Structures are given as C-alpha cells and as structure tokens.
C-alpha cells in the first residue's frame, strides 16, 4: 500500500463571503514533490495554508473538509504541533531582520528543544544552511544580520530556517517568484536534493509550468478553487486531458 504523506479530501475554504476552495482533493506520496499549479488567485496558496493551519490566523477563514498528514487529521491536533512537522517557505523572503543569520536558523530548534548542546545546534545550523545551498556564502558571517543578504540569499535562509526543524513535509509557496534566475536555480537544486537525500515530502505552489516540470513528480492543476486535473507530472504536462490545463501550459491563461 502506498503511504501518503499528505491527503487532502474535499477541502472547502471560505474567506468571509468568498468561496475560495471548492472541494479540493489530492494526495502526495511520501518522498515526492507535488506541484500545485494554476493561474494567480486560484487558491493555490490557500491550500498550503489549510494544510499547516496558517488559515487559523485569519478570523474570517472557515474551513471544511479533511487534511491528513501521515494519517493524522491536522484539525484534530494543536496547530503549532502541525507546523512543527510541516515547514513552510513563503513567496516573500522573510528571515527575522533583528537576529543573526545563525539565530534565524537556530530559532526553531531552540524553541522546540530538539538539540541538547551548543555543538549539536552548530551542526544542525550548518546542515540546514548546507541543504539550502547557502553555507558557503555565509559561513564567515554567521553572526551578521540577514539584512545584508541579497533577496535570493534571504530566501535560501528562509528555507534553511524551515529545514532546521527537520520537517517531514515542506510547503513552498512560490519560493522563486521574487528572486533572480540564478538563485531560483539554486533553490530548485536544493529542493531536489532534500527530497532525494532527506526523504522530505514537498508540496510546491508555482505558476510556472516549466518549474513544475523540472522538479515535481506529481502535478495538481487548479483553476478557480477547483482541481482540474492531476497525475504524474509527465502525463499532465505532456498529455493534458483538460483544455484549461493545455492552455495554461501554453501560457494562455
């Protein structure tokens, strides 16, 4: 039996009066990359925020349906427990500007007491920065503020911060949308390597078909709050069954 890392079943989300997600269903097998693709305003990010319960922060949000992570309903446990195991990287690079590069990465592990000594913490920080392909660029200025980093470096720092918690699932919300192509490639490399080497399951929201094809194993195409088509990336990308998917892949949507 295939073990699913994430199962989203008939998920509905309302923000105030607006019905944002209208019965979204998909599954992500463990150790794979699933790309959620679709035009802007389709509700892709909302799916991620329903998975790690960031939607709880919005008093207007109402959620119906089921989201399971390794068989556990995320709405049956405390949200911070979910987020402890489900990392997230946002579209906007968001390292904390007032603490050092080192402390940004170390904050989560310290909060959750997952290291016992300074040495262990140092190793974890190094590991996370290496995985985010940032170590070489910052190893000599770990105690500087992240304010001096470039946009792409900040985004990789955000990735390292998420990885430092050793999450089993990583949610990436258009992580390369606001950064230059070189940094975007580095992030894509990092994503591939963490899935391959660390066995982390990744859900990537993107509006770039090419990126989805490059790094994902499965593709979920969404349009106006609904899943239009899903399946192995090659199948959906090369032989789309829906006209909407085809038009999106051609860049017409």
């Amino acid at each position, binding site marked *: 039996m295939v073990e699913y890392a994430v199962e989203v079943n008939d998920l509905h989300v309302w923000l105030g009066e607006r019905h944002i997600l209208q019965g979204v269903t998909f599954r992500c097998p463990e150790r794979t990359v699933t790309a959620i693709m679709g035009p802007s305003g389709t509700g892709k990010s909302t799916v991620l925020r329903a998975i790690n319960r960031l939607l709880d922060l919005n008093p207007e949000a109402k959620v119906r349906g089921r989201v399971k992570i390794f068989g556990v309903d995320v709405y049956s446990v405390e949200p911070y427990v979910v*987020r402890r195991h489900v990392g997230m990287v946002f579209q906007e690079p968001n390292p904390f500007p007032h603490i050092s590069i080192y402390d940004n990465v170390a904050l989560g592990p310290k909060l959750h007491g997952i290291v016992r000594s300074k040495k262990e913490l140092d190793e974890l920080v190094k590991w996370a920065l290496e995985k985010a392909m940032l170590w070489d660029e910052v190893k000599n200025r770990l105690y500087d503020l992240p304010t001096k980093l470039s946009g792409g470096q900040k985004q990789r720092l955000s990735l390292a911060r998420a990885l430092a918690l050793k999450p089993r699932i990583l949610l990436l919300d258009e992580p390369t949308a606001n950064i230059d192509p070189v940094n975007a490639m580095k992030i894509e490399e990092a994503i591939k390597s963490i899935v391959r080497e660390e066995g982390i399951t990744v859900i990537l929201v993107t509006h770039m078909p090419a990126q989805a094809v490059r790094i994902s194993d499965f593709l979920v195409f969404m349009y106006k709050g609904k899943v239009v088509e899903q399946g192995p990336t090659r199948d959906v990308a090369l032989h789309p069954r829906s006209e909407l998917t085809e038009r999106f892949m051609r860049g017409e949507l």
Partner: protein
Amino acid sequence: MLRRLLPEFRSNDDRRFFLLHSPTTLIVLLILLSIITVLMLYSVPVLRKEGLGVFIKNIWRPSDYDPEAEVYGLAAAIYGSVYTGLIAVIVAAPLALASAIVVEELIPRRAKGLVSTLMDLMAATPTIIYGIWGMAYLAPLMHRVLLLLHHHLSWLPFFSEPPTTGYTIGTAGILLGIMATPYAAAVIREAYSMIPTHLREAAYAIGATRFEVVRILVSLIKPSILAGLALAFARAIGETVAVSLVIGNSFNISPSITVPGYTVSSLIASQFANAGLYMYMESALFAGGLVLFIVGLVVNALTIWYMKRWEEAIKRV
C-alpha cells in the same frame, strides 16, 4: 543667496500661499529659540555666583537681607527628577508592554477600538486629576505599603528609611509611571501593529505557540519599546503639578524611596511664586529649567537616533 533658499514658484498663487504659510513655521522656530535664550540668560546670575556648583550642591538657602548670603544648589531636585523618572519607567514598562500586547493580540478585534480609546483617554486626562487622585488615594495607600516594605526589607537601601507619610519619592515615581503608561503603550502598540504579516507568519510557521510568537515579535520591536520608555521618562521628568502634590517637597538625596523629595519641575512650581523676593532664587530656578530642557533634548535626540538606525536596518529586509 536668498533666492537659492526659496522654492521656485510656478504661479502667483503659489507665491502667496508660501508667503502666507511660511511664517507659521518660522514662529515655531522663533518660540523655541526664545525659550533657549530666556533659559540661558536668566540662568546667568546664579551661574556667575555659584558656578557649576549650582547643579551639584544640595542646598537651598534664601536670605531676606543679604543677597550675597543666598546659596542655591539643585542637586536634590535633579536627583529627584532622575530618580522618579527611573521609577516611572520601571512601573510603566511592564504596564505599557502588557497592555499593548493585550490590545494587539488577545482581545477580539471589536473590543480593540474601545480599549485603545480608553487608553488614549487616560493620556488626555488633565494631570491635576492624577495629582488629586494621588493625594487622596495613592499616597495613603503607599504609606501603608511603604511601611510594610520598610518593616520587612529595611536592609535594602530602597526602603532603608521609615516613611513618615505617603508623600514620598516612591509615590511620585509610581504616579508618574501610571501617567506615562498610555504614552509608552501607544508607541509600543503602534510598532507592534506595524510588524509585517510575513514576519508574523514566519514566526507561526516554525511551530511557535502564540506566546512564543509574541516573544519573537516583541524582540523584533525592542527599539520601539525603548523609544516608548524614553518618551515615558521624558514625560515623567517634565511632569509638574501631579508630582508637586505627592512628592512631599523636601530637599533629600537618599536611595530610599520612602522619603519625601523634590523634582526640578516641582521645585520650580512650588518656589517660583516667592522667587521674585530674592536676588538669585529666580535665576536658580531658571537654571533648573535649563537642566530639564537639556536632559529632555538629549533623551529625545538619542531615541530618535536609535530609532532611525533601527528603521534603516529593518527597511533593508
């Protein structure tokens, strides 16, 4: 030369608008200039007589007959101002921070407006109201509290002297702290509410509980908290009426908060009416005003400099 200082006008209306409104800015600047000038000029006689000693001696001896026998030293008042200011900051810090967090994080959005309006109302309450409340309620209460503290903790320098009344440095400091709280809270609240959503979400996304998120966000606005407290300090050392009613008006320099004291403002308020009868007293009080002005200026300048530095650092993210 003058032409270069003036803006270029595209029409006569612009020129008239400028000519009509620019004097108002000039008036404000002139007033400030005249304040500095008056403070300095009127301080000259006592500075000539006592030298800088007027700021470090603790003595207040007017003489009805011989002006040369008059001796004035502001040390007790300056000490009292700084000491009560510090107590005020210690009192205001937890109150302001806690109230700002409660308003921003804990209470429902609908109640938020009401509570912050109430806080603003506290700031708008005339200070004399605090003064008479302090006299009627706080001072008697503080007398009992300070007696208790002195009884049990007299080995601490802060409570070493027996309180004879509730009119003490401690009472004044606490009253000032309460009065300054809404100001500090407003600054902290503003900074807290301006924390960008993406940083707030970053804190939640690493699995922080609500309490932990608040801790992270509070550490993010530390400079604003400092600015709020600096404002509280500046308010406290400038406050006059309420303090004169509860501080006991006595020239003491003691670490104990259980004794009566003076602040520069309360000294000026209580002595100015009679100061004209003496040769140098008025000048000594102006010298006190000058000290207040300079301390306020330095505290504000440091705060603005620190905030600017922080804002620039934050902007780069």
